[in-house]
């Protein structure tokens, strides 16, 4: 059981993600964006960064990298896939996840720990967490402002898995760092096998990093991969 961590030109944190997956007991291997075959990977992570410089729009060029045809195929087959930050933006551009990410409300790059409230455990990223649990995880993005023309559809389908909140789990405009619609920080797809989030859980994986709250998200993902693989 191997999880592929996809590297585009401009990707970062791919080694942090690999380390995080190792900490929760999974084998991970880096895959280059020009690969066309993920060799039977049981799960896929699209990490953060600035793939292809984020030219045109975040994720717009990356979604046409050769590897993405394979990622789309695996997504349609039910393989667990997650996108972190830029990886989330790429999955949205590819139409695998609903919505899009635009410039932050205050037009500032945000790099700080924020709080997230778990909204649903029906996703490959949250199944080991509890609804209402608050996680402290770093956010690191300029284009993290979530929008969707069909926001009611996204909400009604239960596709919202994480919202920005205050430390006590209250969700309002003040606890929404970047202006995301309905404070949405993470979503899943209809089939519940693909999920994305803007914050970086791999940067909150051990206490030495200031928080280990990101760990439960990787545990969820690895448990999801094992469930499909079993």
């Amino acid at each position, binding site marked *: 059981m191997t999880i592929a961590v996809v590297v585009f030109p401009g990707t970062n944190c791919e080694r942090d993600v690999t380390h995080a997956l190792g900490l929760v007991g999974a084998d991970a291997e880096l895959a280059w964006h020009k690969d066309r075959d993920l060799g039977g990977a049981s799960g896929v992570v699209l990490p953060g960064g600035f793939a292809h410089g984020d030219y045109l729009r975040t994720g717009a060029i990356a979604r046409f990298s050769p590897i993405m045809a394979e990622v789309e195929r695996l997504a349609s087959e039910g393989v667990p896939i997650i996108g972190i930050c830029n990886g989330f933006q790429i999955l949205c551009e590819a139409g695998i996840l*609903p919505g899009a990410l*635009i410039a932050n409300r205050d037009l500032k790059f945000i790099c700080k720990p924020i709080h997230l409230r778990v909204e649903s455990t029906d996703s490959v990223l949250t199944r080991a967490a509890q609804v209402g649990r608050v996680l402290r995880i770093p956010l690191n993005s300029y284009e993290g402002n979530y929008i969707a*023309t069909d926001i009611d559809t996204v909400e009604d389908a239960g596709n919202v898995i994480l919202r920005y909140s205050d430390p006590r789990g209250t969700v309002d405009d003040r606890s929404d760092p970047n202006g995301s619609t309905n404070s949405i920080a993470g979503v899943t797809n209809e089939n519940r096998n693909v999920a994305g989030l803007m914050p970086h859980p791999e940067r909150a994986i051990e206490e030495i990093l200031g928080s280990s709250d990101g760990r439960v998200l990787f545990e969820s993902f690895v448990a999801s991969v094992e469930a499909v693989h079993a």
Partner: protein
Amino acid sequence: MIYAFVVHIGRKAGLSDPEGTTTGKALRDLGFRGVGNVAFGRTITLEIDADSQDAARIKVDEMCQKLLANPVMEHYTIEAVS
């Protein structure tokens, strides 16, 4: 023949536009009166080698749908300039 086009890409109505909102506020703060909605977009100039302008425009439209615009959040118009 080479045909030139300007593609204008903008955010769909109803979706937030932080650049536009902030710029509109800055203009009002500077004392400009009567400033209503301010919207940001992107302009892309393209030269296309094709047999006719119509054929070139069809290509540009395909490019907009596939890459240049994100249909989830953007609309676009194509203007022929030569």
